[in-house]
């Protein structure tokens, strides 16, 4: 009787806590908006199939305006932009798509294809097999996938531990092995995931959208022109100062470009 009351009170408190935490979650796109975006997306696909790239791009744009961020939508929109001879914009949306789905081979291929034909080129750094393997593993999953995998591994460890409490000696050995392997996998996974989340939260990249953009030594046209970057060039955004953006190129060189000359990934 007393214990029952106590349990009820605890359960009610927990429910309130869950509701409070849930209320802190980011606002999601409404189902109506998703439905409208999906409809525009499918119409855009049909227009693309008929080689009406302008119409397709317009419809993809409408879907994006609903606030939907779907890697397929980004990819298809980038394709239509490429067909419309807008390589800078195409690269921007391929990059956005890759950010959401780093494993997609089509995105990676088309991004390489368009990048191969822009003016400014950054030769890929030479890497050894180990670096390649680490890079591959790091880019093998998205943030959400990584988080689900982390949760799975974490839960597996404790489930194995629970089972091991009641299992016989033979089964306990296998369960402990599984637990150790899951723990190692979790240890390997966590830094990569942490880096990705950090990059997501702190790093921002930009793509040059105009044929040629002058890079200045300071945030203004009165500063010295350092170099000229061309459409499709990707760089890291260091900070934004009004209408100017401090950027860092892949070769380490930095400068300022106009905010209006670039698109943020």
């Amino acid at each position, binding site marked *: *009787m*007393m*214990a029952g009351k106590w349990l009820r009170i605890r359960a009610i408190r927990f429910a309130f806590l*869950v509701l409070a*935490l*849930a209320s802190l*979650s*980011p606002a*999601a*796109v409404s189902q109506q908006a*998703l*439905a409208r*975006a*999906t409809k525009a*997306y*499918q119409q855009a*696909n049909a227009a*693309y*199939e008929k080689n009406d790239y302008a119409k397709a791009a317009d419809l993809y744009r409408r*879907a994006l305006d609903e*606030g*939907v*961020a*779907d*890697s*397929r939508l980004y*990819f*298809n929109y980038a*394709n*239509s932009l*490429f067909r419309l001879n807008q390589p800078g914009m195409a690269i921007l949306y391929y990059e956005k798509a890759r950010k*959401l*789905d780093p494993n997609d081979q*089509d995105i990676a*291929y*088309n991004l*390489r*294809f368009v*990048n*191969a034909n822009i003016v400014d*080129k950054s*030769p*890929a750094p030479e890497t050894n097999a180990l670096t390649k393997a680490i890079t591959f593993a790091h880019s093998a999953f*998205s*943030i*959400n996938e990584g*988080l*689900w995998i982390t*949760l799975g591994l*974490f*839960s597996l*460890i*404790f*489930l194995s*531990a*629970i089972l091991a*409490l*009641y299992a016989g000696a033979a089964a306990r050995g296998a369960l402990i092995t599984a637990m150790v392997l899951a723990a190692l996998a979790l240890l390997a996974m966590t830094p990569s995931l942490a880096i990705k*989340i950090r990059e*997501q939260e702190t790093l921002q990249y930009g793509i040059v959208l105009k044929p040629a953009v002058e890079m200045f030594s300071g945030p203004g046209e009165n500063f010295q022109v350092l170099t000229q970057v061309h459409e499709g060039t990707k760089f890291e955004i260091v900070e934004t100062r009004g209408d100017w953006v401090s950027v860092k190129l892949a070769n380490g060189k930095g400068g300022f470009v106009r905010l209006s000359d670039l698109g943020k990934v």
Partner: protein
Amino acid sequence: MCKKGCRSKPMRFPRISIFHFSLFILAFAFSLSQADVSAEASISATQVGVGEPFQVTVQVTSDEKTEGLPWPQVEGLDKFTVAKNTGTTHSTQTTIMNGKISNRTLFIVNFTYTLTAQKPGVFQVGPIRYAHKTYDRNLGSANITVVKQEAGLTSQPSLTKRSAYVGEQLLYNLRIIPSQGVQQINLPQDLQKLIGEKFWFQRLDKNVEAKTVKVNGQDTRVFDVRIVLFPLIAGTADLSGIPVEYQQVSRTQRRRTGSVFDMFDDQFFGGAGNVVQMTAMASPISMEVKQLPPEAPADFTGSVGEYSISANLDKTSLASGDALTMTVTIRGDGEPKTITKPRLPDLGQFEVFDPEVTTGSAVQGSTLITTKTFKYVIVPHRRGEYTLGPVAFSYFDPARKAYAEAKSQPLTISVTQGKEIAASPNRVMSQREIADIGSDIRHIKSGSAPLRSENDFLYKHPWFWLLFSPTPVAFAMLFMVRTRSRKLATDATLKRKTLAGAQLKRRLKEANESLKQRNSREFYKALSQAVVGFASDKLNVEFRGLTLEDAKAQLRKRGISAASVAEYEKVLNMCDFGQFGGGERDEKAWKESLDATDNLLRMLDREL
């Protein structure tokens, strides 16, 4: 125009004439009579040609040092152009007289007059007089016969236009008409200094060949030196006279002596004439250079003249990604350096590389024609039929006095499917990129699956992090349960105490059942057993069988408060009364009994 030599210099040592010799003897006689200063005069020739220089020299010998010696006084020099110079030497004479040796140093000064006659005739040079301190002597005079040159050189400059635009080609022709005895005609090496910075020039002919033309109705052998000029600066431009150097072989008349040595004067032996280096100076020419009109086209780079442009392709049909060469040739008579890259048509569907440029020039008649060729390698990106608009070049046409544009014919290219985009050779590409070239982008993603918002990252949701808690919590709980159950299995006291609650719950359930059946006796019995059993289980002491006083003593012994003990006594008395004394029959009394028992059990639970 300068028909005669303007300067000359002796090429051979002057010969000594009889007059010269007699003049020398006369002067020597005077010198003997004067111990301190003596003077003598000499002349290199008494018959010369117009423009041919000769020398009159007065040699003064003195015991004293030569500083301050005056120049001789020579009359009749106004008929000649005169150049003067001096030279000093000294000598030592040793004499032995009466066994005594004495030395005497003589200082010798040569005062030399180089005279050039400007016209033929007989002119007297002298009297020549020299005076210094007490020395004052007339050294004599001589008649010089100047004859007209039989040979010489005429240079006639001409210019095609005296008024031209900046950058327009002009022909400067220097016609050289040599006479007999002229040899080795040379133009100065550094013409740029003479022509000046106002012109860019180029000689049309490397070697000047003689040719025969009619001059004043007579066949005349001439040399034409052709130079093309391009005025660089607007305004009045002066072309200074260009000197033409040549060698003149002149024959100097000499009085024949009838001796056998006269034969050495014959031309055969080379002794019949002087070879004189002469220079004929062409007259300067002045011209007017006009500025180009304003509002030149944006791509105008200064070419003035007549221009043409042509363009052609090495192939007109190819696959996308393959390269072709477009050759553009610009040809014109303007200044060569002004021909720059032509204006290409819109080649948006092509990749265009920097051209290979070659420049050539040729002489057509009296005009310098410059040809500049630009070879562009272009790569079509996509298949299709393309017509390349004309390639254009802007220039100024002086004939029409307006800017003009030379255009090539449009070119047609047929591009078939091939590599969509060609690899640029000046780009750094990875092997993977190279492998990608030649294919298309991958097709769009289709399918009817609805879109989803993928940028809704899980780590931003607290509920996601809560999902991490169930398994460790469950593990912890199960671990504790397992540990406790193991402990209970080995500790009976603990087990009894732990199970006290469950036993109590079971007994109270029995009491409730009796209450529902309105069985008062059984109800109070169940309550009594619940209270006694709970106390026994919690204290691990068997209360059943104990008297009430013993039970109270045990409770006190275990630290139970007096209030709880009193309540214990009260509840047990109530239960005894209910079981054995007929007790309360109404539900209200039962309910109060149940509440009193519940209150007691709470008190005991807290304290036990």
